[in-house]
């Protein structure tokens, strides 16, 4: 007690005052109903505000996780959307099975006939080139994430490329801006399909070939994936006819035209890798046909 008193004396009256007032504050709140009620109310308000601030902070910190979660949900929705477009619908009293776009059907019909065809996986582009003659992208998903060669890579805005080489945790994607790229695409207006290639140069423009010449193609016509390539689901937006519509010099029965891509290849970030669940089956069938040609 004597030591405490000496300490207080050495440090002056102000320290004594602060200590005594702190003790007074404690006993006032403890022994007086009115002050206790005011303190409790004020402390409640303060604690509420602090909790709100903490919640806002943790919300902000958790944004990355929420974005990842939403991207996964989006991938699931893309899967559902792609699968909803490709369904097999048995004709009554026949053994024929026809393909229908179930988005034009009622939900009850869709539920009966839907069969999953695609799965979407999320990925992020960690390497990209657009200025070479043959361009590649690297994504942060590999075989450990169910990625395999020949899977399509797309975004919400358009198509990106095809997975070619896969490591455990990373994959190399052959960009659509590659000389070997050949994707089956169709003009939405006529449902006429052709082949989409890149001839180099402008990274925002590709060339659509093998559209039969009797179609009256106009600048601005929408180009989508045909669904015949087995890698890309049907009706994914590719771009719009940009011009140079004319007779293909290599094959006079077909048209050739430039297509402006809907996805800017210079700004690719988050992508989806599309797995065709029946690709092995389809491939083995095609091999049989190839052997008979």
């Amino acid at each position, binding site marked *: 007690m004597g030591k405490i008193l000496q300490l207080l004396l050495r440090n002056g009256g102000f320290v004594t005052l602060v200590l005594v007032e702190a003790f007074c504050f404690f006993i*006032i709140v403890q022994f007086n109903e009115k002050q206790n009620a005011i303190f409790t109310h004020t402390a409640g308000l303060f604690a509420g505000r602090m909790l709100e601030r903490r919640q806002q902070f943790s919300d902000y910190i958790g944004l990355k996780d929420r974005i990842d979660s939403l991207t996964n949900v989006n991938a699931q929705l893309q899967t559902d959307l792609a699968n909803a477009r490709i369904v097999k619908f048995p004709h009554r009293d026949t053994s024929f099975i026809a393909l229908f776009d179930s988005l034009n059907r009622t939900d009850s019909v869709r539920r009966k006939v839907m069969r999953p065809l695609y799965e979407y996986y999320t990925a992020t582009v960690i390497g990209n080139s657009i200025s070479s003659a043959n361009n590649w992208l690297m994504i942060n998903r590999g075989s450990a994430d169910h990625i395999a060669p020949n899977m399509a890579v797309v975004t919400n805005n358009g198509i990106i490329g095809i997975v070619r080489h896969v490591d455990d945790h990373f994959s190399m994607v052959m960009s659509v801006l590659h000389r070997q790229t050949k994707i089956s695409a169709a003009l939405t207006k006529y449902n006429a399909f052709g082949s989409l290639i890149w001839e180099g140069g402008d990274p925002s423009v590709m060339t659509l070939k093998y559209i039969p010449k009797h179609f009256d193609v106009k600048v601005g016509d929408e180009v989508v994936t045909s669904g015949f390539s087995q890698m890309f689901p049907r009706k994914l937006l590719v771009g719009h006819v940009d011009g140079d519509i004319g007779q293909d010099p290599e094959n006079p029965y077909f048209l050739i035209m430039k297509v402006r891509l809907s996805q800017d290849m210079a700004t690719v970030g988050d992508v989806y890798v599309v797995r065709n669940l029946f690709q092995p089956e389809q491939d083995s069938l095609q091999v049989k046909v190839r052997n008979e040609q």
Partner: protein
Amino acid sequence: MNNKFFPNFWRFFGLVAVQVLLLKQLTVSLGAYFNILLYPLFIFLLPTQLATPYVVLLGFSVGLTVDFFYASIGVHASAGAFAGFFRFLLFSAFAPKGGYSGKEPIFSPAHMGWSLYLQVSAWFFLAHLFWYFSVDDFTIVYFGTVTLKTIAGWVLTMIFVWLYTAMFNPKN
């Protein structure tokens, strides 16, 4: 020792008795706005050369004693402690040349003159009352009420300060 101790000892009990037996009843009959708090005069009249921490602790003690009679544990104690520290600031501001010596054992009219005594004690009681009403209301919401109570209480208290000093003319 006895010269300094006993006058303050009796002043402690005398002022606390007047406060709880007389002035408390007077406040009850006059209303909440007419609160007369004379007991801080004990703090004010403590020896001028007493170290501030002692004054703060004695202010706390007299306040806590009054609190037991007012059923307001801590409120008067807080105001008393604050008044003890504020006294140090006031006395420093109004100190005679060369500081306080044996010639001014306490800050009373007998040593400092009536004018200076009333002037300094007026500030002292104003600060004490303001602190007391602030702690009593315990929120800044009632700042206007606190100010009004302080002014009303201060006017009445100063009358009793003058009466007490004129009657007893404390010298030690």
